[in-house]
């Protein structure tokens, strides 16, 4: 059980926060603001005790994307205020500004959701969705898919080992590994298909389609602080959007 105060919050509270960050960085057209949001996310991650995993995951998933997006804007964004040139490209102030803004937004929004999944257990999130009306079959599909992934990876390793003992080269360059990996997909996919039928019968034998309301050993606690925070984030997000639209119209 999560004993950390942040992780103990209701999944919807955390989710609303991620949405709030999204609304905020879109409403406020300033890259400094968006980068500040990212800094705030780092602080929250630290407080939740997941700073290292969070930061590593952001580095792994977002940084390459951000660099590409930034360079694209810098090199191709049209503008008049020329600040330099490189090879056949002219660099403009507008391109720089837009590149910074866009990347800062992607960084803030992406990290907000990465942080959400770092501090929320999938089964809690699915449970919350179920409480909001997601049908049990849908919840089952989401949960079982996420649980099956590590199982598939395990199976794939078993098959790889089997290939290796047959003398198939499984280590080395990307090409060599791809060659070794592709044949493992067939048995993996075949067994996945075969097991859906069996899965359906298994579920049936466990009364999954019984015409009653299910109960659950796993329940989510929604405390006053959750209600308060959700209200706060919602009002905050709505206020920022209204402000933005007002500025825009007037």
């Amino acid at each position, binding site marked *: 059980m999560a004993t950390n105060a942040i992780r103990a919050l209701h999944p919807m509270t955390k989710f609303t926060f991620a949405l709030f960050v999204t609304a905020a960085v879109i409403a406020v057209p300033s890259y400094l603001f968006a980068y500040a949001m990212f800094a705030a996310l780092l602080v929250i991650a630290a407080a939740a005790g997941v700073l290292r995993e969070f930061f590593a995951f952001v580095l792994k998933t977002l940084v390459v994307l951000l660099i590409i997006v930034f360079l694209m804007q810098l090199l191709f964004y049209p503008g008049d205020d020329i600040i330099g040139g490189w090879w056949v490209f002219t660099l403009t102030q507008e391109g720089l500004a837009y590149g910074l803004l866009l990347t800062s937004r992607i960084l803030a929004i992406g990290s907000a959701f990465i942080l959400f999944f770092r501090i929320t257990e999938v089964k809690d999130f699915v449970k919350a969705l179920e409480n909001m009306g997601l049908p049990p079959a849908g919840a089952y599909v989401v949960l079982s898919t996420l649980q099956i992934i590590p199982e598939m990876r395990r199976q794939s390793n078993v098959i790889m080992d089997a290939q290796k003992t047959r003398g198939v080269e499984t280590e080395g360059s990307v090409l060599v590994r791809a060659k070794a990996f592709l044949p493992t997909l067939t048995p993996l996919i075949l067994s996945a298909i075969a097991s859906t039928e069996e899965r359906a019968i298994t579920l049936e034998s466990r009364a999954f389609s019984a015409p009653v309301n*299910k109960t659950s*050993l796993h329940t989510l606690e929604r405390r006053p602080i959750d209600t308060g925070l959700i209200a706060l984030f919602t009002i905050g997000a709505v206020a920022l959007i209204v402000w933005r639209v007002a500025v825009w119209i007037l």
Partner: protein
Amino acid sequence: MDPVIQLKNVSYRYPVGDEQVLKNVSLDIGRGKLVTIVGNNSAGKTTLCNLIRGFIPHFYKGDLEGSVLVDGEEIADAQLGQLAEKIGYVFQNPFIQISGVKETVFDEVAFGLENLGVPVDDIRRRVEDVLQLVKIDNLRNKNPFELSGGQRQRVALASIIVMDPDILVIDEPSSQLDPVGTEQVFDIIRLMKERGKTIVLVEHKMDLIAEYADELIVLADGEVKLHGPVREVFADPSYMALGIQYPHAAALALDLQEKGMELPFLPIRDEEVAECLARARRKEGRP
């Protein structure tokens, strides 16, 4: 007799098969009886289980003739979702019987009760009881994906009996178990019988059948060749021609009979052998 399960002239062919897997099967299974089904590979044992549980015709289509009644109700007319509470079915393959959404054995066993809408406090109590009964309390916090075949088989059994159905259909529950594990599973089956459950069991271990079962059904090529009280089926002269094992005791006695010894009765349990031999000697006029 008060039959709980009745099959009348049932024939069945799977959608992708060209042959009938069950041919004109008729049988009654009495309430509270422990009935074992034996037969060689692909005789149709699992198919018969699927039929009783209603997976045929609700899940597997194909050609079904005749009728299957459970508690007097035509299974084809029943709602599949309502059958789980009435008939528990433990599959032959323990590797597929995992919900795939639970992280611990405890939650896995509780899954069926959650689906039945049982109040949470009752669920906890019932799962605790079953974990003790099936002797898997030590596995309670393990991930169901990370169990051995034998462990999975027990978890599968626990997951079904926790729902407390009146009828249990159990397909080869001991295939992955060592002798100790097999004995334990049979202890549980006996306990279920004492609680008044009707049990249909597919099993190959003849000594255990001789010890525990009331009736024996012999299937071959989709036909019921023999059906009756265990002792009568083993003693039936046509049993030998079916190429199915005897219990140890019976095999031994039949050997002696072939060598010229006259048997007063056919022993089917080890402890009956001495009695049988003693009586045979007395009959021959020796003290």
